[in-house]
């Protein structure tokens, strides 16, 4: 009985910590403006749409990755899928939840766009270094 209670509470707390952790990752990148190049390539200006996420992720996978970004991108990918599942299952019952998950999904897409921007800038710097060396 005690073990079952601990298990249920721990899983519920884990979900809450995970959501907040992902939100902290997203919040840290939400103030960053996208460069004009990335805006043109992915068609996102100041705000993104949840449906953009997969497309931006495809661009991200094409770009050589940065070690610092890898885990954050994975965590946000998992968060995006979780939001999709919650929105699809509970969204019909609680419309406000669906609105919230859509908002969160759009912020995940913006996070991915900022990560893409950083990767492109990093690769440009590397290329410039190689050319000058």
């Amino acid at each position, binding site marked *: 009985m005690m073990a079952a209670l601990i298990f249920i509470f*721990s899983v519920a707390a884990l979900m809450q910590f*995970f959501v907040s952790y992902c939100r902290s990752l997203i919040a840290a990148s939400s103030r960053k403006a996208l460069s004009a190049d990335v805006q043109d390539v992915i068609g996102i200006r100041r705000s993104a749409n949840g449906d953009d996420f997969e497309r931006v992720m495809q661009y991200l996978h094409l770009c050589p990755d940065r070690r610092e970004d890898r885990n954050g991108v994975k965590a946000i990918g998992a968060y995006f899928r979780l939001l999709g599942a919650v929105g699809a299952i509970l969204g019909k019952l609680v419309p406000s939840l669906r609105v919230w998950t859509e908002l969160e999904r759009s912020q995940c897409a913006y996070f991915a766009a900022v990560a893409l921007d950083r990767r492109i800038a990093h690769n440009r710097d590397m290329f410039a270094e190689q050319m000058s060396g």
Partner: protein
Amino acid sequence: MVGPFGYTIWLLGALLEAAVVVCSLVRGPLRRYFTLNLYMAMSVLVSVGRYLEFSRHGLTSSEYVYFYYYSDAILTICLYFALMGLYAIVFEELGVTMRLRVFMMLLLIGTTLFSYSVVHQSESRMLTRYIIEISQNLYFVGLILTYVLWAALLKLRESRVRVIQIVLSLGMYFSINAANYALRNAYPDLRFVWAFLPPAAGMFLPIAWIYAFMKFDDEARLAPGRLAAVPR
């Protein structure tokens, strides 16, 4: 039997734990986050000790099993000290750090005594059962304390990204381990689940802390209102 995958996870875990201390040294916050680094340094030592016990006596030997669970309980206590360090950072301006430390030490002693009394009343009275019981309870109390700290962060509108990410990753680590030990206590046959989760959680914590130390400095801030799971 530990396969190549198991060895890789083991080695990677120890390297990541050592990397946290190195990153902390490089980026400067070693003194400020001393208890966190102490825990990571202890984890590296425990990993080495476990490997030595494993290579001498084997995975299924009672020597290795006892060493594993005792060292796990000691590491959890070290994690309590890390948590105390985080409480001290969050509440440093309120001047209540000493009271919090006393309270947490009392809680730690209380949890140990409670776990002992639960096992003492049971029929089996096995030492391994006591260790599993105490680990489950220590992780759970750690989870509650991290949850309280998280609530305090939201209430105090804490905005330092590094502190926020360290606390949240610690919360996830405690949650995974508390759930894992509870599952193990309730369903000892589900070995494929509870044998896999601790190494995964053990890898996640140093990765998250390395990320927090390397990516953000102590002054990096974000809007605290964006963090609550329910929008405010």
